[in-house]
């Protein structure tokens, strides 16, 4: 075991304090220090203890908002919400990324990785959009997200967004998808997906487009890097080719999801 001499001396109150100690006291302090460090090393190797479903449920009444509330509708970490910048009259997808989904780091990372690993443009677009709806609502975000984008994007991309939510619960060794520990943390280590998710999974396993949502989950898993530098710019061409931007602006084109875009644009409306 290596001892960091400076850290050890600092733990005793500095060199002056050490100079006042006799040999026996120094030896004892060193032994105590090593003991603590070894315990820390062993503890660091212990797997994290994840909560149970019951423990997570017991936290419900400790919050003033429900866990499923969209990101735009609650302050981060209990803080007050901030006034949002106004949207342009005919907002585009890029406007929503900059003014409502920002910083959107996770989806930008996910799409960047998809692009770098040579995935199709439909999958890359799905990665770019797959969690944007979390600004609006969180439960069943795959279905909500697909509904939000469906009028504007290829069918395969909407399929990938809708079903990535389901496939996140099921590891796929061949595709390189591990069940993430963050799911033990947020759902509980003893969580089992509800019946509709299991039925959806069974359907997907035999579907010809299985790999589309699966590839979204693979890129999803690797897109939680706090130091990654990403931007919307590299995706302008893919968005230009595959996202049917309405000339009236998102929210004002009378599409089946126009109301969802308006809600994202104006989340402070009381009714």
């Amino acid at each position: 075991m290596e001892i960091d001499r400076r850290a050890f001396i600092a733990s005793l109150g500095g060199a002056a304090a050490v100079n006042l100690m006799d040999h026996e006291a120094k030896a004892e302090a060193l032994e105590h220090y090593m003991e603590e460090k070894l315990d820390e090393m062993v503890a660091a190797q212990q797997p994290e203890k994840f909560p149970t479903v019951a423990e997570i449920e017991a936290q419900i009444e400790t919050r003033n908002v429900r866990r499923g509330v969209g990101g735009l509708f609650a302050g981060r970490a209990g803080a007050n919400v901030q006034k949002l910048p106004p949207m342009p009259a005919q907002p585009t997808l890029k406007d929503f990324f900059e003014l409502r989904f920002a910083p959107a780091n996770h989806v930008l990372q996910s799409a960047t990785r998809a692009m770098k690993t040579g995935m199709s443009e439909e999958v890359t677009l799905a990665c770019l959009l797959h969690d944007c709806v979390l600004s609006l609502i969180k439960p069943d975000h795959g279905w909500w997200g697909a509904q939000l984008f469906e009028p504007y994007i290829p069918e395969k991309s909407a399929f990938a967004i809708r079903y990535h939510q389901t496939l996140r619960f099921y590891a796929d060794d061949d595709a390189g998808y591990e069940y993430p520990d963050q799911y033990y943390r947020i759902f509980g280590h003893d969580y089992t997906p509800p019946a509709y998710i299991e039925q959806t999974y069974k359907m997907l396993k035999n579907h010809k487009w299985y790999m589309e949502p699966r590839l979204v989950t693979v890129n999803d898993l690797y897109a939680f890097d706090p130091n990654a530098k990403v931007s919307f710019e590299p995706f302008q061409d893919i968005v230009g080719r595959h996202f049917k931007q309405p000339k009236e602006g998102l929210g004002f084109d009378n599409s089946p999801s126009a109301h969802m875009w308006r809600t994202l644009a104006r989340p402070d409306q009381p009714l």
Partner: protein
Amino acid sequence: MSKRILCSFAAGLMLAVVASAQTAGKPAMPGLEATVTKVERAATASLRDCPPGSNTVNATTRPGEQFALVTVAFKVASSFQPAPMKRPTITDASDKKFNTAATFVDVGKVPEFSCTFPFRVPEGTRLKALQIENTAYDLTSLDSK
């Protein structure tokens, strides 16, 4: 105290057995030399690409499983031509193949890097070889199970 140190140390060893010998460097593909530097066992594994970023997501084993963590040092020569690379695989003593979730992304962006590839294997699996593209790297001397 010394008994406690030994117990703590033994517990640490049970969780992560490390062999620190190295295999000789061999090209995984033209201009990319790879050397297996370490084989460890652990209950959890960090999910990072290669070269690694700071992804915060981990994977956890189920009962009866462990992660074989194979660390590889890479050196990129000026002759290296970036191209998509397959995910590495490992084989056990009976040539059963195991996959990793870790993927090569942006190889060549830095001249030297080290990656730890996690392979989910049954507890006690003896590793035989690591495969990167068309090159096999012997793991038997590094893997003390």
